[in-house]
């Protein structure tokens, strides 16, 4: 590359000379008096060559550095291929560096280094050895030339007069009508978004007498087994029941949809810590209360229960509900108290629901109203 510095300097010279070309000034396009360069001398620094441009040894050293980067990259690719076959994954994986999965760590590290070294080599190449000429590119006016614009308008007017659209209103109006009608299929397609949800948002699978069971296990709960400070993530019993053929009554999407609305938590507090609103005095069983598990803000499942403060915290947006005070919102973005499920004890002594929730659970929606 030595000896090229002469060319490089010359190239720079050309670039600078090329700057004040007429018709390509730096001012806004469409100036009435034609382009005028606002800066006679924009103050470009004179070009100085790099060490690699003037020193053969420096250039050779840079060349070796860049080649080393590329060769090292190839070497890491080889290491990647070796690691792919050497390290075990699966049930009995190889681990390195105190418990990291060896396969993932080495594959990622070697492939990453290989790519990184190609990048570093390319940057170094551009900075040290590639042409180092400052190039000035003049800004062009954004508008088309006057001749082009006149020609375009002429072509449009020619089209209008040739088609006769202005002279034949019947064609024009019927075309407009036909295009308007094309909107109808688009609107009709919206109908396929489904029937309206109806009362699906307002009801859950809870019914009078349905037992409250422990989630996952599905075991019914006796009030005497529930201690002060207890939290039970619970579900309606029907989600664990089977039909006559031994198949679960709820499965797949249906099960998830039912769970989404019917999930509850059961907590027990000291009865004197609970202040029920009028009408809810008999909704609990000696301090055992059941609330919806679905946050009234955007519907995250909440079970972050502080047994001493009786606060239930939603991990998504920190809405906090006071379950000792009817699920009242005491902090955060939730707009409504947490719905409560009235509890009773059934004939066999297990906790059961008195009814479905008396209000829609989960986030608010338009048709829900203010209640």
């Amino acid at each position, binding site marked *: 590359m030595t000896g090229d510095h*002469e060319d490089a*300097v*010359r190239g*720079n*010279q050309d670039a*600078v*000379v090329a*700057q*004040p070309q007429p018709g390509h000034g730096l001012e806004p396009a469409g100036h009435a008096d034609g382009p005028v360069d606002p800066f*006679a*001398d924009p103050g470009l620094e*004179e*070009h*100085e*060559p*790099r*060490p690699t*441009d*003037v*020193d053969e040894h420096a250039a050779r050293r840079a060349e070796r550095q860049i080649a080393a980067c590329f060769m090292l990259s190839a070497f890491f690719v080889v290491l990647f291929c070796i690691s792919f076959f050497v390290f075990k994954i699966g049930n009995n*994986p190889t*681990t390195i560096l105190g*418990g*990291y*999965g060896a396969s*993932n*760590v080495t594959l*990622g590290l070697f492939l990453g280094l290989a790519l990184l070294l190609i*990048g570093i080599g390319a*940057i170094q190449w551009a*900075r*040290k050895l590639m042409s180092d000429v400052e190039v000035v590119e003049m800004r062009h006016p954004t508008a088309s030339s006057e001749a082009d614009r006149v020609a375009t308008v002429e072509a449009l007017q020619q089209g209008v007069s040739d088609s006769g659209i202005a002279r034949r209103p019947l064609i024009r109006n019927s075309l407009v009508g036909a295009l308007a009608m094309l909107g109808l299929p688009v609107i009709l397609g919206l109908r396929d978004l489904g029937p309206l949800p109806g009362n699906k948002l307002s009801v859950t699978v809870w019914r009078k007498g349905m037992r409250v069971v422990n*989630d*996952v*296990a599905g*075991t019914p*709960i*006796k009030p*005497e*087994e*529930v*201690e*002060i*400070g*207890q*939290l*039970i*993530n619970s579900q309606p019993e029907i989600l664990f029941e089977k039909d006559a053929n031994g198949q679960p009554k709820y499965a797949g999407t249906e099960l998830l949809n039912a769970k989404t609305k019917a999930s509850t938590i059961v*907590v027990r507090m000291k009865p004197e810590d609970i202040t029920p609103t009028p009408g809810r005095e008999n909704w609990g069983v000696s301090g055992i209360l059941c609330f919806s598990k679905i946050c009234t803000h955007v519907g995250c499942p909440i*079970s*972050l229960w*502080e*047994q*001493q*403060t009786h*606060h239930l*915290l939603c*991990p998504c947006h*920190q809405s906090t509900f006071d379950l000792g005070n009817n699920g009242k919102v005491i*902090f955060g973005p939730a707009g409504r108290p947490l719905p409560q499920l009235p509890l009773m004890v059934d004939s066999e002594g297990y906790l059961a629901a008195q009814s479905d929730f008396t209000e829609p659970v989960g986030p608010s929606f338009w048709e829900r109203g203010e209640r």
Partner: protein
Amino acid sequence: MRLLTARLSTKRRSPIAGLVVVLLGLLLTGGGYALLSPASAQSGTASQSTVQQGRQLFLVGCSSCHGEHGEGIVTKRGTQYGPPLAGVGAAAVDFQVGTGRMPMARPGAQAQKKKVLYNDQEISALAAYVASLAPGPAIPDPSTYNTTNVDTQSIVRGGEFFRTNCTACHNFAAAGGALPGGKYAPSLHGVSNKHIYEALLTGPQQMPVFSDGVLQPSEKRDIIAYLNSVMANPDYGGAELGSAGPVSEGLFAWLIGIGACVGFAIWIASHSTRSTRSTRSRKGASA
């Protein structure tokens, strides 16, 4: 009983037969009660001297907050300085003192895990004394939390229980998490099987209680087995960054990842070294 004695005595007519039957009945009832009642089985194992030693330790180390007889101390504002201990049971003492949470160094939002100040014998003496105040959950038998022979199916089930009941506070990787007002759910890494079981049983601090009646002992054991299996897993994805999810990962990506990109951009655009050995004579003829 009287009917039985009467009939026997009419047949045998022995003068001491009635007395023998009454004594036998008393022995059977008492023995049966002692065998079948769990509370008495627990307190029966702690000798009176152990309880007495626990009482002495309690007076020195615990009574300043919990009261001379574990009745608790209420502050002027009506809050608990130290809660009453009647009925918390030996398991609660074993957990709180065995993990160093008690005695607390200072009042605060929450007792912290720290160096254990009592030896095993002293902890069991304290537990025996507190258990003698009122019946409560006993220290679980080692067989209940032994996870050596738990099969994969149970571990998977333990995972379901864990995700349903525990992850809200303790994080999906059991790394712990923050609660309001300076409180927090601690990390479960390095916590012994026994202490996890006791915490579930007694609900220390803000943690809810998961009583044996609702979350069966085998289900608790499955949760512990799941935790052990999770913690024994290698970190496939590389550094876990505290398993705190998007917060720590986002911080890492923003600071380290984007920082590196900015560094490269600066390097690409920076003015490289220039040589003074330039040919000044061929200066560009700028306008």
